[in-house]
């Protein structure tokens, strides 16, 4: 009896409590969202009418033109002067922020926004050079479906912690001159790493990769490294996702050095000179010096053909054994002079219209980071494509994606490479 009453009271109380909790959660949630909203209004009101110095690699005319387009858009939307500071290497901007920090310049930094990923992000986050917890609060960040999409929360396996907003996605794809690789015996298109080696041995001097630490050259080495460890036992394979240490470096990288020792004598200029960048590699394909090359931004290939920079006979394809893939981001240094304005720009770069414009093959062709299901009908319509160019990568070519190894391997590979191949004999 008493017990019964007790249970009644308890259930009544607990009902009230649950109801209260629900009310609390709802109100918190709405409070949180209004907080986010008011935060954003605050950012908007502070960020308008200023200049943003966007430090971004400037070696590609198409990308530069896209950034110019974005500059016009934020000029009309927010009256922001977006200044593209063209870098030949992103590390220049990293060293600039680092220099400012060591000179105690903590709030008047010259870099407002920086295009970054991988090793440079790892360096900046390690030295606490980036503004934290802003990217995940951008209104347009929700279009990336962040809770189900690790690609926008991890950069080469390192959590981004809201320090960088995703901008685009890239996979390592290859392209070749179909007049030079004509499919005759000893000259058939290589579609795996091993075939590439044997093809290069039979057609010496027609393949090479940009000199590390170039981003694209490093990507090729990472692709080779990951592929060479496909048959390795699981403990060794797992090392690729761990930081490089003095203990594991030799064991993990030795297969790569053995492979390169075989590959290098067959390369362009006998592997004694390497091109400086992926852009230069593309030019050498245009010159017919190289017959096969690779890129992290597949749409640049048809675009280059349209601009006459590559011959009409160029065709794109993805390696059958896998394509290295990653996301690239924009970040704000901790000492940026115009952090709010930079957030406005980053948010604009994430907007469906900016992402759709970027994905157009004629503009830049960089793959969008937005998830289609989060978009409205009208927004999805922005992404509709027209008939692909004959030199473009055919749709759904990428059968298998390979994830990037831990960023510390970049440095390990670079140092090993420099010691072995940096000085021609």
């Amino acid at each position, binding site marked *: 009896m008493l017990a019964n009453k007790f249970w009644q009271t308890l259930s009544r109380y607990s009902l009230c409590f649950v109801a209260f909790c629900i009310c609390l959660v709802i109100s918190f949630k709405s409070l949180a969202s209004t907080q986010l909203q008011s935060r954003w209004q605050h950012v908007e009101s502070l960020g308008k009418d200023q200049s943003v110095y966007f430090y971004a690699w400037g070696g590609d*005319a198409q990308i530069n033109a896209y950034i110019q387009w974005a500059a016009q858009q934020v000029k009309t939307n927010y009256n922001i002067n977006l200044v593209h500071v063209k870098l030949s290497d992103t590390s*220049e901007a990293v060293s600039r922020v680092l220099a400012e920090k060591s000179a105690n310049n903590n709030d008047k930094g010259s870099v407002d926004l920086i295009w970054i990923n991988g090793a440079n992000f790892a360096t900046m986050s390690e030295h606490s050079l980036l503004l934290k917890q802003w990217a995940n609060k951008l209104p347009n960040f929700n279009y990336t479906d962040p809770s189900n999409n690790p690609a926008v929360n991890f950069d080469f396996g390192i959590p981004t912690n809201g320090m960088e907003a995703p901008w685009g996605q890239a996979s390592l794809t290859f392209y070749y001159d179909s007049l030079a690789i004509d499919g005759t015996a000893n000259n058939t298109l290589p579609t795996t790493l091993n075939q590439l080696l044997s093809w290069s041995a039979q057609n010496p*001097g027609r393949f090479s990769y940009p000199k590390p630490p170039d981003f694209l050259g490093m990507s090729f080495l990472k692709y080779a490294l990951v592929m060479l460890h496909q048959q390795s036992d699981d403990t060794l394979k797992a090392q690729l996702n761990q930081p490089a240490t003095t203990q594991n470096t030799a064991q993990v990288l030795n297969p790569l050095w053995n492979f390169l020792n075989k590959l290098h004598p067959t390369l362009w200029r006998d592997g004694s000179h390497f091109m400086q960048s992926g852009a230069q590699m593309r030019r050498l394909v245009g010159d017919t010096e190289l017959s096969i090359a690779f890129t992290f931004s597949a749409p640049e290939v048809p675009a280059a053909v349209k*601009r006459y*920079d590559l011959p009409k006979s160029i065709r794109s394809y993805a390696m059958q054994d896998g394509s290295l893939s990653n996301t690239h981001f924009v970040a704000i240094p901790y000492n940026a002079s115009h952090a709010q304005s930079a957030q406005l720009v980053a948010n604009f770069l994430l907007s469906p219209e900016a992402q759709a414009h970027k994905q157009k093959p004629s503009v830049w062709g960089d793959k969008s980071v937005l998830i289609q299901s989060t978009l409205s009908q009208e927004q999805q319509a922005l992404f509709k494509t027209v008939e692909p160019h004959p030199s473009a990568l055919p749709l759904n070519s990428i059968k298998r994606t390979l994830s990037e190894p831990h960023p510390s391997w970049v440095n390990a590979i670079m140092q090993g490479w420099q010691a072995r191949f940096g000085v021609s004999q």
Partner: protein
Amino acid sequence: MSVASNKLAASPTLKPHKSADIFSKLVKLSPRFLLALLILPVIGGLISVLLPAFGYAPVLEHTTLGLHGFTMLMQTPGLTHMVMLSVGTGLISTLLAFIITLMILAAFFNSPWLNRIQRLLSPILVIPHAAAAIAVGFLIAPSGMISRLVSPWFSGWELAPNGMFPHDSFGISIILGLTLKELPFLLLMALGVLAQPELGKKLRQQHKVALNLGYCPMTAFFKVILPSLYPLLRLPILAVLAYASASVEMPLILGPNTPPTLAVAIMHWFNDVDLNLRIKASAGALLQLVLSGGLLALWLGGEKTIKALFSDLLTNGEREYGGVYWQKITTVLTVFAISFILLSLIGLIMWSVAGFWRFPAALPEQLTLLHFKSALMQMQSPLFNTLAIGLVTTLFAIIITLLCLESEQLSAKPLSRFTSLIIYVPLLVPSIAFLFGLVWLQQLVNNQAAFFNVVFTHLLFVLPYVFLSLASSYRRLDPRFAHVAASLGATPCKVFLHVKLPQLFAPILIAAALGLAISFGQYLPTLLAGGGRIATITTEAVTLANGASRRTSAVYAIMQMALPLIGFILAWVLPKYFFKSAHR
């Protein structure tokens, strides 16, 4: 300096006007200002490189002096190779340019061909190094013009062959580029010396006498002209040597990268993420300084040795050293050099308008203005920066130069030998050695004023050329005009503005065009002082040179050539319409 004020005080009728007073003061101070402007940045820059090289870099939390930086430098793989490359390319290219200059002068002295060659080569002088390197690269690449002209009918190449140029590990491409670029400079410098009225006349007469005595024309040149000509050519040659051994643009565009030349490596170290590399870079900058200094000493030593060894030959009476053959060799060499230059320019122009142009076709499949259109769209702000920096720098340089030269005339004594030597300092000290220190200093003083920093740094390189170009005309000015004006009661200021400047209109414009050309061509100073924020046509051209598109690169190189050329054309045309009466 006191003479001018004495003059004013001694002639009470002149009644020093207030503005004249300020003017005289300004004029009197200007040589010191010029000195400070040239010495302080160079010395400050050198010190700011010296300290970190020996381990003193408070910013990096290194305050213990030591040889750490040099140890790091010595451990760099391939350092010897880098040093050899820098020394070799610098010395060989200067030597080649010098020898070819002498051969051309000797073979065509007193011949109308000398003027024709001069007219053909002088536009080359205004082509910035980066543009020249791009053009040469187009020519000698495996898929370049030369290889296209012989393919496939002769060579059988259907695809571009495996060549070694550019970027060959011996630096031959760099030598080729530097030689072709420095040859016109040295030649025009020599012709400038010979164009001096009295000296030139004397030398030509001596040459004639030698011919009458039966000397072969080339022998006559080497025995009679060269001994008087060389001392006046020495400084330009040393400047060329110092530049060539430490330049960045040519090796960056044409040189190897396993390893690069020392100067290029230093630049990479300075720009590296790892700030500790700056210590190594500073040590490298010192090494570069020693190398360039060593080369200059070597050159001067070689000069002495040659003088000692061959002075007997001057008076041995031998008239003929196979002059006919040498004449032929020189003609072939000249034709070769000129056609090389012309071919690379033609290639450059064709690339800038080429549609598809697959190897081995000698001509593009179609012509298009697309590349110009898209480049001009993106060129606006670099173009504006280039012009703004060039104009501000040149204007400033011309004002200081004019004031200095005026002070020389007012005080009636030439600038001290020290001052005249100091003017050459920025040309003789390798810029890579002091620029980094200078940039570091500039960052300490003002971090934000990138535009001002760039202008200031450009001034260091523009000022010497503007001064050298204006000095001779200013000193040659007939003093009687100024005397007449002064006796009519004109203040020094008025004499300067209304009598001297109008007469100097043409030389001032030439100096301005030269100053603009120098400013337009600066790569390293713009890149460093601007912190990469200030893009000019030249920095864009170098960035794009190893980039994806030969066509875009060609457009930028053409713009680089067009800008200074427009300047010189204006300098040539304007005096025909303005101040004509003053210049008779």
